[in-house]
């Protein structure tokens, strides 16, 4: 017998809400009116309600259940000697009341009751530990914490001097204080903090809501509140604390120093407060915090902390000029005009704020007082300390000032020359110092450090040289100059417009990015190499370092040969001076590996990789980044050599270690995950690769932005994957986007751009848009040959693809030289068992077959089958394609039994392998099998195979229409033959029907085969 659940619930709730537990029994007896089952059920619930043996751990459950209680302390409550009068505020941590104290003195105070969830005893114990120090504080700008204790409900509370004020930022805005007035007010806050620091108290939670401004005698006076509270609460920085009140913790995060933004924030000193004061000043000047809620809030937890620890915020003046929309209102609330405000802040105030915000606390103001004094210097027009007038400082300052124009070749050259000049100066200093006494050793080391700084800085500068931007500037420059010249020559306006138009049209034939790249090489990189030759003849290590930097830049620009030469020399120098096992030598080996890999000099690269891995492990340990790079390089080399199984081991190893050592969102980790995805792609483990690619793309979009080259790589890779999965329409936007971005960012000739062109061609081919595809294929062959040389795997791939493509078009003799070249180069350079070579061999076989040269074709196919089984495994899609080709040939030769024997066993695995856009391959297999059965006069089997194939073609058209025609042709032949064998069973009708269908398809059937060479490449980096 069942009881209405609603009734149970009603009685249960009534018992709880209206009765004390002691009276439940009587209540139930009355309420259930003799319904024993109802009564029993409610009793069970009440028992469970009282019990602690819940599904939740009792302790956890209690902590949470208290959250559900309404605040227990309300106006009117008595807490110790304090009587709550009214609630005056509510923050993330607790509720603030106005309270009255009678004993020992009568006064009004602010009383803050902390929200539940803290261990009250510990809070109070920590507060007591600071009580003595707190009581020593006595400063007009500090609101004293008077007392702390535990409420009757077990929650901690703090009693403070009552301040009727507003947060400083709000006060300043509402009263439209000028920048000067703000600074003056801020200085008094610094003095308050300084006073506390002298008494040994660190505030730890400086933010506007803790720096209040109240008016006394019509003058604004700043009061810092909550001293000792943050420490007593000692909120550990965990994701959980974040989610207990996201908005509130964000509010705190914005002001948190980098050292506080560590999970284990043990090491905090007074300079953390200096940092938070810096954030506060930043906000007072600009209206926003360096990393505002929006920036932080859009990031994941770890990322937020990383931003605080690592990211360099924009200078206040930059922030102001960036905030175009809100600048008028920001300025208005500072009683200033927008332009004036930015100008006012730029310069010394920027430097003062940025010094307080240094990530390295050793570079911040030592004390809050130092900070205040510098502001006072600014206010009285004295030179501020924040701009130490060192040579390096001035140099950096100059360079930074010109950073905006570094896009142009001339400005970049300027920077570079400055860099070299800077080095020369420091260099001569070193030499001078060296001749002096050894007591100057420290000074010498400082000089060397400075030198290192300059060269790092220079490397950073060069990295920003972007051929695309330079190309665009070049275009704009040339056009402007021409326009000016024409105007100066008094050319009539109509003619001027016309001539400019013609010029602009002509100019479009020049790839400005390529032009800029050449220009950069000629005007910057080459002179830089020469400068290094001259300047550092007797400083071999600096020479090596700079050469390696330049090698990287050449590599970035796609000028591989030049990169390799520089890198080899850098390595040789380091080996000679530092020895084979020095970390810098190992670093050079890793760089060289990457370059050799990029040029497909794989055997050489492999040898270096092995050396690097072994030495890195010995010298630097398993988890050092250099070791990770070495393992990664090894994976790349093995992958390029076609040793996929081995490569997978290296990649999986390095991905796991990188996640662990660098973190899951670290750009280097993402690079390694991408490589693993690429390898899985090579192995046709498409669904395994997909999550990796998507993860990397999403993270790069978030961390690096859409325009970053790495993000573009990811876009390309995901496109290739989707295409290989047969999701052609889904793939297209990714591949198009990638191509557009590569052309824009890397230029027309960059190897990666060429890969993207190729990928696009393959997609069009798969979509059956042959006419559109052809120019893509021809372009890639030509360009690859020129840029990478005839032996590069990309060149080889593109040649094979073009040959295959021409063959499909029926241009057999035109195709042959391409197909042959691919096989010959493949065998010579990569060996017979490389997947690339094997595919080229099959393609050649297919061509020979189309030409009717059966024996030659057969030996190609047999070789491809045998070697792919061994090298790629029996179930690899390439192996299946090879088997299919051989089966087709056997069938065509009339060896139908052999053909069936060969093909039957791969039907099951092919059903799994060839799905979506690759379904036509399965249909092709079934067609061949059907034809073979027909040849054996096994009509029923043949019919089953062919109808199935036909159904697949209907549903999922092949990129080669001839394949579907071939299938229908076979059906016609089947029914004709069947009718001859068993007349009057209606097979003649079916034959006629299929014949009609065949005639419908206008083009004549030609013998063709399903292979399209898939040569998509995913970029490695």
């Amino acid at each position, binding site marked *: 017998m069942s009881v209405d659940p609603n009734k149970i619930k009603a009685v249960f709730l009534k018992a709880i809400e209206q009765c004390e537990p002691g009276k439940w029994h009587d209540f139930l007896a009355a309420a259930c009116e003799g319904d024993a089952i109802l009564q029993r059920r409610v009793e069970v619930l009440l028992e469970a309600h009282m*019990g602690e043996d819940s599904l939740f751990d009792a302790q956890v459950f209690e902590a949470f259940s208290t959250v559900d209680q309404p605040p227990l302390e309300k106006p009117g409550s008595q807490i110790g000697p304090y009587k709550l009068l009214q609630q005056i505020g509510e923050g993330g941590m607790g509720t603030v009341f106005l309270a009255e104290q009678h004993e020992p003195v009568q006064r009004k105070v602010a009383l803050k009751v902390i929200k539940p969830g803290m261990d009250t005893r510990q809070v109070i114990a920590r507060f007591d530990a600071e009580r003595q120090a707190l009581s020593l504080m006595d400063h007009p700008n500090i609101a004293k914490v008077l007392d702390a204790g535990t409420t009757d409900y077990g929650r901690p509370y703090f009693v403070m001097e009552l301040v009727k004020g507003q947060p400083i930022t709000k006060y300043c805005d509402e009263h439209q204080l000028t920048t000067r007035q703000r600074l003056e007010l801020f200085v008094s806050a610094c003095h308050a903090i300084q006073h506390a620091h002298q008494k040994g108290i660190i505030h730890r939670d400086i933010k506007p809501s803790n720096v209040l401004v109240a008016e006394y005698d019509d003058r604004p006076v700043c009061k810092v509140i909550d001293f000792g509270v943050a420490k007593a609460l000692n909120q550990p920085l965990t994701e959980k604390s974040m989610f207990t009140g996201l908005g509130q913790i964000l509010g705190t995060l914005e002001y948190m120093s980098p050292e506080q933004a560590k999970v284990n924030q043990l090491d905090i000193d007074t300079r953390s407060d200096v940092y938070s004061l810096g954030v506060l000043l930043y906000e007072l000047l600009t209206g926003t915090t360096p990393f505002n809620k929006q920036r932080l809030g859009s990031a994941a937890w770890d990322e937020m902390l990383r931003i605080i620890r690592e990211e360099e915020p924009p200078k206040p003046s930059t922030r102001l000029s960036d905030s175009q929309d809100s600048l008028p209102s920001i300025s208005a609330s500072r009683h200033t005009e927008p332009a004036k405000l930015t100008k006012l802040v730029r310069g010394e105030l920027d430097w003062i704020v940025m010094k307080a915000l240094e990530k390295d606390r050793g570079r911040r103001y030592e004390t809050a007082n130092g900070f205040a004094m510098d502001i006072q210097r600014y206010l009285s027009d004295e030179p501020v300390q924040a701009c130490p007038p060192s040579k390096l400082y001035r140099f950096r300052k100059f360079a930074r000032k010109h950073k905006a124009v570094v896009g142009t070749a001339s400005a970049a050259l300027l920077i570079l020359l400055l860099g070299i000049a800077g080095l020369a100066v420091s260099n001569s200093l070193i030499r001078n110092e060296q001749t002096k006494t050894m007591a100057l050793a420290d000074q010498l080391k400082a000089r060397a450090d400075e030198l290192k700084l300059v060269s790092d800085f220079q490397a950073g500068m060069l990295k920003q040289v972007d051929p695309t931007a330079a190309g665009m500037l070049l275009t704009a420059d040339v056009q402007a100059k021409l326009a000016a010249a024409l105007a100066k020559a008094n050319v009539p306006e109509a003619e001027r417009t016309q001539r400019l138009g013609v010029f602009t049209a002509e100019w479009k034939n020049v790839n400005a990015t390529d032009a800029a790249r050449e220009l950069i090489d000629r005007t910057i990189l080459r002179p830089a190499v020469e400068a290094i030759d001259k300047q550092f003849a007797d400083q071999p290590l600096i020479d090596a370092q700079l050469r390696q930097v330049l090698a990287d830049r050449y590599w970035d620009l796609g000028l591989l040969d030049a990169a390799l030469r520089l890198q080899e020399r850098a390595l040789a120098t380091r080996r000679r001076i530092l020895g084979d096992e020095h970390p810098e030598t190992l670093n050079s080996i890793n760089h060289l590996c990457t370059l050799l890999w990029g040029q497909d000099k794989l055997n050489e690269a492999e040898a270096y990789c092995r050396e690097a891995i072994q030495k890195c492990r010995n010298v630097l340990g398993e988890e050092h980044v250099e070791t990770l790079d070495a393992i990664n390089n090894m994976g790349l080399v093995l992958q390029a050599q076609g040793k996929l199984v081995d490569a997978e081991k290296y990649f999986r190893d390095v991905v796991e270690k990188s996640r662990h050592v660098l973190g899951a969102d670290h750009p280097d980790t993402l690079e390694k995950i991408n490589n693993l995805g690429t390898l899985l792609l090579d192995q046709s483990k498409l669904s395994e690769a997909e999550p990796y690619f998507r993860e990397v793309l999403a993270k790069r979009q978030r961390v690096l932005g859409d325009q970053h080259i790495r993000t573009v790589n990811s876009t390309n890779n995901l496109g290739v994957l989707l295409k290989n999965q047969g999701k052609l329409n889904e793939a297209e936007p990714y591949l198009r986007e990638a191509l557009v971005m590569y052309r824009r960012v890397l230029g027309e000739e960059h190897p990666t751009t060429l890969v993207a062109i190729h990928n696009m061609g393959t997609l069009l081919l798969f979509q059956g848009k042959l006419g559109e595809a052809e120019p893509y294929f021809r372009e890639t062959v030509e360009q690859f040959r020129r840029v990478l040389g005839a032996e590069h795997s990309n060149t080889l791939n593109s040649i094979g693809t073009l040959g295959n493509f021409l063959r499909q078009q029926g241009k057999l003799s035109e195709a042959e030289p391409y197909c042959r070249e691919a096989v010959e180069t493949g065998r010579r350079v990569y060996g017979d068992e490389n997947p690339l070579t094997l595919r080229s061999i099959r393609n050649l076989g297919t061509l020979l077959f189309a030409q009717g040269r059966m024996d030659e074709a057969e030996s190609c196919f047999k070789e491809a089958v045998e070697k792919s089984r061994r090298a790629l495994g029996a179930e690899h899609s390439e192996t299946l394609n090879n088997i299919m080709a051989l089966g087709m040939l056997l069938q065509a030769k009339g060896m139908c039994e052999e053909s069936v024997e060969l093909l039957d066993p791969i039907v099951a695995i092919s059903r799994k392998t060839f799905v979506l856009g690759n379904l036509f391959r399965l249909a092709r297999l079934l067609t061949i099998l059907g034809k073979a059965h027909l040849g054996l006069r096994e009509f029923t089997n043949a019919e089953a195979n062919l109808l199935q194939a036909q159904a697949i073609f209907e549903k999922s058209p092949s990129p080669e229409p001839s394949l579907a025609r071939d299938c229908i042709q076979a059906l016609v032949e089947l029914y004709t033959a069947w009718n001859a064998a068993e007349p009057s069973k209606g097979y003649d009708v079916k034959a006629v029907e299929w014949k009609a269908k065949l005639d419908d398809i206008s083009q004549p059937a030609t013998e063709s085969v399903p292979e399209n060479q898939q040569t998509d490449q995913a970029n490695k980096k």
Partner: protein
Amino acid sequence: MSDVTRILSQIESGDPSAAEQLLPLVYEELRKLAAARLAQEKPGQTLQATALVHEAYLKLVGNGEREQSWDNRGHFFAAAAEAMRRILVDVARRKQAEIHGGGQVRFDLEDADLLSRASPDRIVALDDALAKLAVEDSAASDLVKIRLFAGLSLEESAAALGLSRASAYRHWTYARAWLCAELADR
């Protein structure tokens, strides 16, 4: 505007089909986040369910200028709770299998999420019990789900489900007792 934000505003403007689109998106995101976490963490560590849900919220809906209204967020968290329930129960079942197979599983006790301290057996049992409760009292079981699996406070849960605080509190009290009784029987 992210997909999820768009769907949320569609739901708000009364498009009934929009709600169906939400769950798979949220599920997918949570699953990915969970997988990424599990991949990073040492074997045996439990998922921080509520942290994941909030992270998913930030990722999918963002923390843009315009605060989502609570009603709006409520739909998200209801979907997230359901998604998280599926994930957690899946994980728990898998762990059950591991434990029963003799594998070693260590649970992280530092985490204070309601559920992460529960053993896989408890989670699976809870899920079964919740399914039973849903038959009798779907309002109460919805509330439990959103609290346990999306980690919302009672007030937030009430707002999300469009309940008054008082009735949310009553549902919760009842559901808690009901589930405790149900689980004690096992």
